[in-house]
């Protein structure tokens, strides 16, 4: 590549201008406040972590990690998500704190992603981790909080799809006993959302017709709690039965929360099998092509940091939410302009202090040397506000004599 031009920045990173920042901060503030009301306290972890600890433990693919070397030659990573760093903190600094831990975060995270518009290398996540509680109540709490957070952020229409990795694990172990390679192939097709490939792979296995119909029928296990009843009939394998029982419990709790209208059960939705161990979910907003939140249960992560514990959580993709609600206009803080000449400098600065102390208004003072030109440049708008050189003021205090 040729030397970058002065206006260019690395691929995948973004500048946020004042209006966007105001919106982003609003979302972040409202969501964190919501999480706080649910008893989650915020923590901050470093941008850099060791590759061998957090890097290896994280759910991010190795090739998507930004890696660098420190002065001693250790490999470092830019954090790619917040769950692994929080697991590290929960197992070390918070070791003496009793479970369950309820932690929240808002943070930028980094992924080395193909050069393509719409895929950021740096983006924002706001989320929670609930550590040390294996119950379905805990899973439901996290899903209900995700719903409350989306509402707090201002996302109007959304849906949460709820699945469980145990169902397919059990079903495949039952129908394809001992055939690990075949199980893996089918899982990969589902993970890649390739239903055609999934059906072809099943047909190629030459299974009894009934089993074949059962495996293909999985693709239709999507809907409300009637799906739980249907899924119970599909596989008698204990792992699958446990998964469905757990999922039904989560559903019942969500019903008690009064939020089940936002949730659909989807047993084909699977997260990364090597990372998630139980319930998984994803949130979708109308008018946006990419999910706005994702989460699930990961009971094996903390043992990698020496404090084995069940855990569940989710992350909101804050800048995706900004895309959904970014079209709303926000009120910029009203500003007062104090114009003065050299003789009135002291008075102007005093008035500025007074205005600032009075609270909401931001104050700009301006030394005017050419009164005629200044008066010429100032326009009063129809809405009663003033405009000067492209900026808008709610009030002008004129101290020029």
């Amino acid at each position, binding site marked *: 590549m040729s030397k970058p031009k002065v206006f260019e920045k690395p691929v995948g990173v973004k500048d946020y201008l004042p209006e966007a920042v105001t919106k982003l901060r609003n979302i972040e503030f409202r969501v964190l406040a919501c999480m706080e009301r649910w008893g989650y306290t915020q923590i901050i972890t470093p941008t850099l972590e060791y590759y061998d600890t957090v890097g290896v433990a994280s759910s991010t693919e190795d090739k998507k990690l930004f890696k660098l070397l420190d002065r001693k030659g250790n490999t470092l990573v830019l954090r790619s998500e917040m769950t692994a760093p929080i697991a590290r903190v929960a197992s070390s600094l918070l070791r003496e704190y009793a479970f369950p831990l309820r932690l929240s975060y808002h943070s930028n995270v980094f992924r080395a992603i193909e050069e393509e518009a719409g895929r950021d290398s740096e983006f924002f996540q706001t989320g929670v981790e609930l550590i040390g509680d294996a119950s379905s109540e805990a899973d439901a709490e996290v899903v209900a909080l995700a719903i409350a957070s989306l509402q707090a952020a201002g996302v109007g229409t959304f849906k949460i799809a709820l699945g469980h990795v145990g169902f397919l694990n059990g079903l495949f172990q039952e129908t394809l006993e001992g055939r690990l390679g075949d199980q893996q192939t089918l899982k990969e097709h589902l993970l890649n959302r390739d239903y*055609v490939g999934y059906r072809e792979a099943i047909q190629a296995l030459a299974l009894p017709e009934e089993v074949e119909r059962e495996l293909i029928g999985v693709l239709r296990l999507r809907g409300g709690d009637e799906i739980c009843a249907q899924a119970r009939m599909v596989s008698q394998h204990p792992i699958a039965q446990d998964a469905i029982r757990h999922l039904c419990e989560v559903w019942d709790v969500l019903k008690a929360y009064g939020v089940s209208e936002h949730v659909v059960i989807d047993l084909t939705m699977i997260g990364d099998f090597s990372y998630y161990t139980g319930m998984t979910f994803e949130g979708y907003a109308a008018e946006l*092509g990419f999910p706005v939140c994702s989460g699930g249960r990961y009971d094996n992560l903390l043992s990698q940091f020496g404090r084995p514990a069940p855990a569940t959580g989710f992350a909101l993709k804050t800048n995706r939410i900004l895309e959904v609600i970014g079209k709303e206009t926000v009120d910029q803080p009203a500003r007062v302009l104090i114009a003065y000449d050299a003789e009135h400098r002291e008075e102007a600065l005093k008035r500025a202090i007074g205005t600032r102390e009075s609270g909401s208004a931001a104050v700009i003072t301006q030394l005017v040397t050419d009164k005629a030109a200044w008066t010429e440049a100032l326009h009063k708008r129809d809405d009663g506000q003033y405009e000067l050189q492209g900026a808008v003021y709610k009030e002008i205090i004129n101290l020029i004599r």
Partner: protein
Amino acid sequence: MEDILKVAMPKGRIYKQAAKLFHKAGLPIPEDLEEGRRLIIPVPEARMEFILAKPVDVPTYVEYGVADIGVVGKDVLMEENRNVYELLDLGIARCRMSVIGLPDWKPVINPRVATKYPNVASQYFREQGQQVEVIKLNGSIELAPLIGLADRIVDMVETGQTLKENGLVEQEEIFQITSRLIANRVSYRMKNDSIQRLCDMLQAVLPVAGKI
């Protein structure tokens, strides 16, 4: 009531076959659009809107969610590797992706392969344990071995007529190609009812092989 379903359709070869299939399934999409220049065709009675796109762009539209679903060849899906749901094999526009060379082809020390599908070609030869230099071309791929730009090509073969006329032979088939129905990750959930209904309607008129 769910919103209108936006469908990305590939212009050209596949369009007519896809339109015929949609018709058979009872969806009133115009069968002849090629003369018109309109790129967006609303079909309000079916609560659908058809977007006409260059075939290779269909998965992009669907991944970004500007189209909810789309019809696209497996060749494009394999090459573009987009994050979309592949819901149905429509069984139309059937052909194959193949390695092609001159009849007297012999292995060379530094093999060069010309293709419109660099990702497909690279992946295939890697799986075969061969390191090849891949040259991306945009058309008339058959020329490459004839004029010595590459010793082999990777391309789509429908009838084999073009190959025969240029004195080329098909060496290996890489995979079978048909058109697929794909869906956006979010639309598949937010508009699941309409998408599932469309799937069922199409499936009802497909040959048995593709059925659930």
